């Protein structure tokens, strides 16, 4: 099923529909579409080549799971969904799919999908797959390596029929990204559940379309200041509307520091110059693989403190094997700033009502307790 966003509904509703439709959102822009998996791909560069970036890791599980027998239970939910949809040909309309090596889920998705293709089991029309191998380090050797990866990405884009991105197109994309970023900042007055949908709708349309809708949606929105305890969110990537609505009942989400939250779109998208873009991208502290690793935790603390959070909420996907290493030190670092920390434990991709009720109770109790 394909959903095409109409032009007559309110902009906020259009963004919400687009977010819900995810990669099944209709293509009204007549540009080739490039699939993206994971945080850490220079989307402005891909778009400047004359394409629309479409994130492919947000769909729903298909009924039929052709790759079930080769996917271990500890593989991330989003990878499982992507792989089975990939094997069913759900992404065959894309000109290509780019995966971010330093995104744990994306690497597994790339490797398992590539092997499926190698074994001759992928359906006819499967798009070419590309691994963007950038490493999150700023040493001289890493800088040279990352520049080569960028060149390889451009060559891939040209190979699938796109243009070599020029300076003018890069500048235009960077300007759009800056404009969009300003709108996303303004949208923070919007409840967290809604602002997440507005932000993530941009994963499935052009930056220009996203910016235009955001502009209208922000203008339409009643900007009365929201009151309540100021919340931070850390841990695994989460976009569950029920979970975010639960946070909205407890307080105001002012620092959504997880891969489906404010980590996207990355700050590197606002750079027109490739070297500057790579410098920001390779030093992005939101990447759990950043070197030095302490930058990740320190960045979370800095952003939580800057956002003046009263309480930080942590939640983990059932498959977490990385963020858990941060928990004791992060909790201690936040406590040193007088900020409370509640770890809700593991949750399903779409947590049920009981889990959400229990989580809400824990948060309310934590807020009621003396700091």
């Amino acid at each position, binding site marked *: 099923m394909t959903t095409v966003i109409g032009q007559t509904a309110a902009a906020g509703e259009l963004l919400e529909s687009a977010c819900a439709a995810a990669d099944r959102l209709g293509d009204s822009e007549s540009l080739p579409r490039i699939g993206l998996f994971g945080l850490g791909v220079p989307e402005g560069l891909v778009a400047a080549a004359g394409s629309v970036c479409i994130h492919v890791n947000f769909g729903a599980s298909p009924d039929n799971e052709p790759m079930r027998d080769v996917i271990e239970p*500890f593989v991330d939910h989003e990878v499982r969904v992507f792989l089975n949809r990939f094997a069913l040909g759900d992404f065959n309309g894309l000109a290509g799919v780019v995966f971010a090596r330093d995104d744990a889920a994306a690497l597994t998705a*790339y490797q398992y999908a590539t092997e499926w293709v190698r074994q001759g089991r992928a359906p006819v029309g499967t798009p070419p797959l590309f691994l963007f*191998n950038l*490493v999150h380090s700023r040493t001289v050797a890493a800088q*040279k390596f990352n520049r080569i*990866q960028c060149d390889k990405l451009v060559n891939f884009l040209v190979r699938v029929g796109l243009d070599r991105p020029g300076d003018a197109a890069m500048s235009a994309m960077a300007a759009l990204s800056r404009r969009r970023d300003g709108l996303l900042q303004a949208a923070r007055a919007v409840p967290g559940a809604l602002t997440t949908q507005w932000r993530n709708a941009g994963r499935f349309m052009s930056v220009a379309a996203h910016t235009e809708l955001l502009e209208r949606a922000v203008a339409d929105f009643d900007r009365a200041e929201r009151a309540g305890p100021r919340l931070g969110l850390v841990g695994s990537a989460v976009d569950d509307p029920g979970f975010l609505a639960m946070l909205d009942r407890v307080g105001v989400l002012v620092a959504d520091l997880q891969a489906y939250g404010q980590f996207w779109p990355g700050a590197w998208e606002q750079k027109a110059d490739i070297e500057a873009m790579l410098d920001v991208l390779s030093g992005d502290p939101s990447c*759990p693989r950043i070197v030095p690793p302490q930058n990740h935790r320190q960045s979370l603390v800095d952003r939580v403190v800057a956002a003046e959070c009263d309480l930080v909420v942590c939640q983990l996907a*059932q498959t977490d*094997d990385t963020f858990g290493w941060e928990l004791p030190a992060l909790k201690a670092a936040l406590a040193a700033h007088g900020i409370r920390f509640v770890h809700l434990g593991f949750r399903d991709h779409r947590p049920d009502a009981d889990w959400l009720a229990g989580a809400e109770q824990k948060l309310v109790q934590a807020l009621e307790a003396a700091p």
Partner: protein
Amino acid sequence: MTYQPLAATAAATDYQRNWVKQLRTQITSGTQYAFVNADTPHELFHAMDMPIVTNQWWSAVIAAKQLSQYYFDYMQAEGFHERLARYSSLPLIAELEGDAERQPWGGLPKPAMLCARLSADDHGKIFSLWAEQTGAHLTLLSAPAVPDPDPEWWSRARVDWEELYHTDRLDLMVGEFETLIADIEALTGRRFDPEAFARYMDAIDRQEAIFEEASDLVATAPQCPIRIAEQIPNVMIPQWHRGSDWAIDHAQRFRDELAERVEAGVSVVEDEKIRMMWIGAGLWFDTSFYAAFEESHGAAFVWSMYLPFAADGYRRASNGDPLRALAARVSAMNEQLHQPPWINAWMVEQARKYRIDVALMLIPQHDRFSGHGSLYAKAALEAAGVKVIEVWSDMVDQRDWDRDAVVRRITPVLDAVLEEKHLT
């Protein structure tokens, strides 16, 4: 017939025990050492005479002393959740716990340097916590992936490694090696000698060639001459000291003792009926499990990865640039054991070479990097006619291990194999 251990086995374990004691003495006298992951360039430390202790080896030692349960309970009490990797973290947890006397041999002194490769997402986290705890200098090596892995890596990696692993990846790794060398020079006050390093790399290649001969002996002998519980220390202890005179001497001793056994017709079981492979890291807290089916079914575990990987994972022609050859050895070391199609293709090749009937596949649920690719490998082995039994457990955490239950699952499979072979 009662199985007799090789004389080489005791020699290897005695050597390692004495080495640790000497290391402690050296460190007390001011010698600095590095604590490193298994897939890092040990060769650089050895070449510059800086002692190293390998994380995974020390983890196995702690587990073998039946201490893992205590430490993992402690880990959870400290706020780390129960689904984090265990094999790579057990030594860190022991360090955080702080009671050195509880650890094997009185524990390890604080290292001067820590080194890990970012092959798994959690390695950077684990080693940075260690660095925060000890103040040791931390080196993390990048691990970009090979985007187009050739299934038959083991044949191309010997000489044609530049194309197999890609020039940009090797350039990056060599660049990071050069930084590491400078760090070791600064810590030790010694200079890296490229000519001596070239000779040292040649020595390692000789050692791995000897292990390749040992592997061929085990694979082609009419019946398996050695338990894998003995293969592992005889390979891995020299590997931790690879290229040293002792390591090469030991490899020769091991190979020669194996050859004598094969010549004399000595075997693990008198009438070998089923040949099994153990896929994954060792079951360090219960290595006697590997003998569990010898009497009941005439079934011997003949294969574990450590012996054949000494050749396929380590032999890299220098091609005129030993440092780059080392980068080729290290740049995909772990991935070859876990990433499709590398793991599936190698498992099938090894299963054919060793005439395997049944494979037990250890899949650590909470050490994802070590578990990835398992089901692809399982499917490939089954397509090649090997029966595969999944063992969802952990190499160092005995809390997940129910030996009786595993034996109950394996027994009917072995019964069926005997029936198929008309050996009942």
